[in-house]
C-alpha cells in the first residue's frame, strides 16, 4: 500500500503552539511519526548566562506561561541550594499553595482543550468559565492572574491575610463541586469515552523504558511523582495521594489530571488551615552567589522539571540548564501513535499536555550517521572552565 506523508502543524487548529509532526499514513493508519521541533526557540538558557542571577528569576518564570510559578520555584530552589539559604516554614507553605493553585488551573485548561479537540465546545466553554475563578484566586495571592512572580530567594514576596484565605477556601469549595461534575462527564459521556478509551495506548513497560514523566506516566500505572520521591518545600509535611491509573490510554491520562485536581484542592486547604506563623520572606535579599553547583527537581503540572546551575562566584551564573517535562513526553511518547487512526492524532497529542514553549531547548540530533553517544552536561555546555 502507498505510504503518504501528511504534515501536521506547525500551524494547525488542534495545536495551540507551533510544533510539526510528519505523519506517515497507510490509508487511515499512522505507521510512523517524525516530530520536528524548534519553531519557538527563544534562547532562554543563553539569556540566563548573560544576566544577573536576580534578573534570571524573572526570565526563567517566563519560560512557560501556564506553569510559570513552578519554573520560578525550581530556579529559586537551585539558587537557594548554592547560597545555602533556607526559607522560613511559612514561605514553604505559601509556595505549595501557589504551586497547587497553578496545577489546578493547568489541569483544568488541558481538560478544556481536550474537550475542544474532541469537538465538545460547550464543555470547553464551561470549564474555561470555572477556571477563571482559579485565576482570580491566583491574582489575589500573587498579584497577577497569569505571571505570578511570587517567589524570591529565601521566601515569598507577599503574605496572605485572613480575608484572602477565606475567599480562597470558599472558591475551592465551588471548584471542587464543579470538578466532581466534570469527572462525571468525562467518565459517563459516550462521546468522550468513544474518542478517548483505548486511544494512544502506552504500556507500563514502554512508559518506563522511554522515561515518561508526570501524568502521562501515571496514566500508565507508573508510580512517579517528585513531590513524593524527593520532597521539596513543604511537600513532606502535606498529606496527599499519588494518583495512578492502569488503563494506559488517553482517557487514563485525563482522569489522572482530574483526580490530581481534587488532591491539589485538599493540599491547598491543608496548607491554608495549617499555615505556620512567622516571617514569610527574607529580611535582606542575598545578592551574592557563591561558587558552586546545584540541581533541583520539582513536579510541574506536566511532570518532572529539572534545573541545573553552575556558578563561578560571579553575579552572573556560568550555566543554567533547564529540562522540561514536555520534552521527554513529546519526543519519547511517540510510541502512542503506533497503529493510531489519523483522526485520533490530535486527541493523543493533547493527552500528553504538550507545552511547546516549555520544551524548546537546545538539543543535538545526528541522524546522518546513526551514532549513539552520551555527552556529559559539561560537554554540552561547551567552553573551557
Amino acid at each position, binding site marked *: 500500500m502507498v505510504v503518504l506523508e501528511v504534515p501536521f502543524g506547525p500551524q494547525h487548529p488542534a495545536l495551540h503552539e507551533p510544533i510539526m509532526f510528519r505523519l506517515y499514513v497507510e490509508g487511515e493508519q499512522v505507521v510512523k511519526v517524525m516530530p520536528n521541533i524548534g519553531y519557538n526557540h527563544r534562547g532562554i538558557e543563553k539569556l540566563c548566562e548573560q544576566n544577573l542571577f536576580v534578573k534570571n528569576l524573572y526570565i526563567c518564570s517566563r519560560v512557560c506561561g501556564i506553569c510559570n510559578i513552578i519554573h520560578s520555584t525550581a530556579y529559586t530552589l537551585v539558587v537557594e541550594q548554592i547560597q545555602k539559604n533556607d526559607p522560613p516554614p511559612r514561605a514553604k507553605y505559601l509556595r505549595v499553595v501557589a504551586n497547587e493553585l497553578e496545577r489546578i488551573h493547568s489541569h483544568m485548561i488541558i481538560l478544556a482543550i481536550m474537550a475542544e479537540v474532541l469537538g465538545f465546545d460547550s464543555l470547553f466553554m464551561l470549564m474555561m468559565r470555572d477556571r477563571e475563578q482559579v485565576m482570580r484566586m491566583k*491574582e489575589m495571592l500573587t498579584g497577577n492572574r497569569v505571571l505570578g512572580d511570587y517567589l524570591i530567594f529565601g521566601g515569598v514576596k507577599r503574605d496572605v491575610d485572613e480575608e484572602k484565605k477565606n475567599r480562597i477556601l470558599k472558591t475551592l469549595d465551588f471548584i471542587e463541586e464543579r470538578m466532581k461534575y466534570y469527572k462525571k462527564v468525562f467518565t459517563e459521556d459516550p462521546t468522550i469515552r468513544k474518542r478517548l478509551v483505548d486511544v494512544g495506548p502506552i504500556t507500563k513497560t514502554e512508559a518506563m523504558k522511554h522515561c515518561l514523566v508526570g501524568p502521562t506516566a501515571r496514566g500508565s500505572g507508573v508510580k512517579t511523582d517528585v513531590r513524593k520521591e524527593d520532597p521539596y518545600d513543604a511537600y513532606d509535611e502535606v498529606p496527599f495521594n499519588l494518583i495512578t491509573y492502569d488503563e494506559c490510554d488517553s482517557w487514563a491520562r485525563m482522569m489522572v489530571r482530574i483526580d490530581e485536581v481534587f488532591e491539589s484542592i485538599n493540599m491547598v486547604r491543608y496548607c491554608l488551615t495549617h499555615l505556620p506563623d512567622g516571617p514569610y520572606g527574607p529580611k535582606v535579599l542575598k545578592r551574592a552567589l557563591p561558587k558552586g553547583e546545584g540541581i533541583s527537581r520539582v513536579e510541574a503540572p506536566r511532570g518532572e522539571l529539572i534545573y541545573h546551575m553552575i556558578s563561578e562566584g560571579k553575579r552572573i551564573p556560568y550555566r543554567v540548564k533547564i529540562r522540561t517535562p514536555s520534552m521527554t513526553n513529546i519526543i519519547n511518547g511517540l510510541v502512542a501513535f503506533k497503529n493510531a487512526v489519523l483522526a485520533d492524532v490530535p486527541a493523543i497529542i493533547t493527552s500528553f499536555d504538550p507545552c511547546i514553549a516549555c520544551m524548546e531547548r537546545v538539543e543535538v540530533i545526528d541522524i546522518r550517521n546513526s551514532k549513539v553517544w552520551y555527552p556529559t552536561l559539561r560537554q554540552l555546555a561547551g567552553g573551557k572552565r
Partner: protein
Amino acid sequence: MKIPLLSDILRNLFSKPATIEYPKVDIPAEEGYRGLHRVDAAKCISCRLCAMECPTGAITMKKFPYKEKEIPVIDLSLCIFCYHCVYVCPVKAYVVSTNYHLSTGDKRTLISEPIPPSTKKNN
C-alpha cells in the same frame, strides 16, 4: 443514551452570558494586583537599586528640577510589572495601584513619571 452535560447546556440557554463586555463594563482587579506604579520623589534616596536590578532595563535615572539627585523613571512599554523594584526599594518609595487600563495610541505617553513632592511637604 445518557448525556450528563445536557442539563447544564439547557440551563445555560436561559441564563445570562458569562462574558463580560470589557470596555463597556469595568472588571475591577483584585486587591494587590500589580498595576501602574510610580515613584514618590520625596521619599526616593536615589540608590539606583531598582534601575540596576530591573529585569528588562525599563528604569532609567533622570534629573528633575525639584530634586538634586536623579530619580527613577519607568518606561511602561518595557515594564513587565514584576514589581521587583517595589520589592527591593529600601525606603518603600514606590506608590502602587491596581490600575491596568494602560492602553494608548501614543507610545510616548507610556512613561511613569515620578510624583513630584507637594509644596506643602516642602514647607
